[in-house]
């Protein structure tokens, strides 16, 4: 017991950081979201649940995040396997290349996509030469939520790869040989051996992608301006427009946090149980 107590001491810095930089700000935000003209009220939440502007922003945010999560997960898994199967040298190189997109600010990502896929972007111009497409029509999708899907995948796929590489590394490959030598088919091996082993990482990775896309701001701000109606941009306009509505922005932030956290929790519950049962 005495030893345990010392271990708790080591947790103090972590607890302090979480309290100071996560809990305390969140409590302030929650408190302010419940104030309207200095009085306790649910007016901010009421407005969010009744106005089309807010409801449609949550809808677009969810659509965007679910799409990026699904595509990012599906592309990330095979890519991570390919990278893992290279020799250690190539693997090191590929992994460090993979983390490059993670260091760029959203601003850089946004503008680089304009340079590539905008109406004078070089891919657009090549396609124009080859297929005679209309560059203005073609590039317009870039400034909608669909453009954000492409731009977000740029920094989401690496996150999936990094999470998955760890899973492949800890996977006991002897199990695979055992299954195959005992006569299991490839599909059966995949379902009964590989899937259960990597499932926790797939779930952790895709939850991460979902949470990151729900909250991402910089890339959207740089790429689409404030015209795409997603929650992070709406929070921005509420704190920088003239009729500043801090309370409304606070309420949006609280709802965004709640929604993201609960979706991630339900998802993990549902699938972790199922995968451990197998």
């Amino acid at each position: 017991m005495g030893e345990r107590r010392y271990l708790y001491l080591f947790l103090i810095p972590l607890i302090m950081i979480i309290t100071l930089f996560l809990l305390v700000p969140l409590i302030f935000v929650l408190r302010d979201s419940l104030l309207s003209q200095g009085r306790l009220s649910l007016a901010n939440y009421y407005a969010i649940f009744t106005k089309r502007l807010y409801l449609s922003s949550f809808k677009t945010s969810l659509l965007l995040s679910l799409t990026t999560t699904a595509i990012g997960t599906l592309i990330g898994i095979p890519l991570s396997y390919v990278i893992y199967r290279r020799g250690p040298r190539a693997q090191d190189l590929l992994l460090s290349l993979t983390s490059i997109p993670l260091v760029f600010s959203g601003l850089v990502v946004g503008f680089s996509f304009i340079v590539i896929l905008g109406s004078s972007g070089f891919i657009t111009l090549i396609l124009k030469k080859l297929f005679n497409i209309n560059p203005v029509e073609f590039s317009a999708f870039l400034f909608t939520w669909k453009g954000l899907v492409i731009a977000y995948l740029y920094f989401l796929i690496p996150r999936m790869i990094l999470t998955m590489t760890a899973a492949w590394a800890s996977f006991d490959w002897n199990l695979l040989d055992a299954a195959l030598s005992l006569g299991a088919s490839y599909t059966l091996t995949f379902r009964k051996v590989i899937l259960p082993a990597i499932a926790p990482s797939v779930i952790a990775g895709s939850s991460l992608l979902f949470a990151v896309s729900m909250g991402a701001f910089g890339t959207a701000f740089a790429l689409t301006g404030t015209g795409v109606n997603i929650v992070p941009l709406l929070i921005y306009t509420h704190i920088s427009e003239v009729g500043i509505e801090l309370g409304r922005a606070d309420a949006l932030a609280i709802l965004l946090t709640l929604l993201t956290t609960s979706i991630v929790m339900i998802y993990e519950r549902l699938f972790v149980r199922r995968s451990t049962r197998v």
Partner: protein
Amino acid sequence: MGKWVALAACVALVVGVVSLAFAVEIKEELYPGEKELYEAAKKEGRVFSYDTGPTWANWQGLFDAFKERYGLELEYNDLGSGATVARLEKEKNNPQADTAYYFMPFGAMAKEKGLTEGFKPVNFDKIPDVLKDPEGHWFSIHKGTVVFVVNKKLVKDVPRSWADLLDSKYSKCVVYLDPRTTGIGYAIVIATAYAHGGNIDNLKPGIQYLAKLQKVGNVRMIEKTTEYDKFIKGEIPVWITYDWNGYRAKYIAGLGDDVEIVIPKEGTITAPYAISLVKGAPHPNAARLWLNFIMSEMGQRIFAKGFVRPILPDIELPEDVKEKFLPKEEYARAIDVDWVKAQKVQKEAAEMWASEVLGQ
């Protein structure tokens, strides 16, 4: 010991050279009292000028001239008029800005919120009365007209009217700034309202027009701050913005015949831009020096050189600039509106725009 002496000598040398470089001497005063104000400003060393983005309204030209004349540092940001007032309000207890620049109605709003200080710069008397606060809490410094700036490389037929913009051939073509956070965005709401039979008391027709533009799918994007660079890069087919941006793209950035500036048939508005001394400015003398410079004949001429029409009526546009402007008859379709009233309905207009245009 010797090492320290050498170091000290080096430091002294560097400091000497630097201060020499900064010791600018004013030979001829632009206005009485300039030298005295400069001496006081020199001690403060810098000005923080909010929302004067360098590619907007030839601010770069004014920055360069100011730095050359006085050797003072000038820092700026580029937020949008609405965001500027919001920022000043947040910093009310600990002001960071010296001056704030915005679409004129926002000046009146900043004064109402107690964010500004009265200051009458040189030539204050020459500013038309309706374009300034009597105590100088804000005063207009230049004007601009809301126009279409068209990139002919991307658009074959140049739109001539607000109605034209609704045509399906301009699908995904139109770009403008967000009325919630920027002055030009709000000016566009007002301009479209007047063009469709509305007025400052009834902005609805303008908002309905913008909602329709959105619905037919002709809006390419809604930006948050100056998109000049994107236009130059060829990302914007039809840009609703101020005339100076168009002239600047055409003649200064050298896009030439690829750019056409159109004053829409149904009419538009001419919008004044104002500046204020911020209450509790950290560098009050340098701020006054900067404001005086902007309002001096010299400063006003620099606006004119960048196709930005100065507020002082007696400043003649340089010949080579004048001949490049669209003819006077075209500008006759651009009206002035009651700007003070415009301030009162701004918040409502922004909300209505958001729910009608984005909440569709």
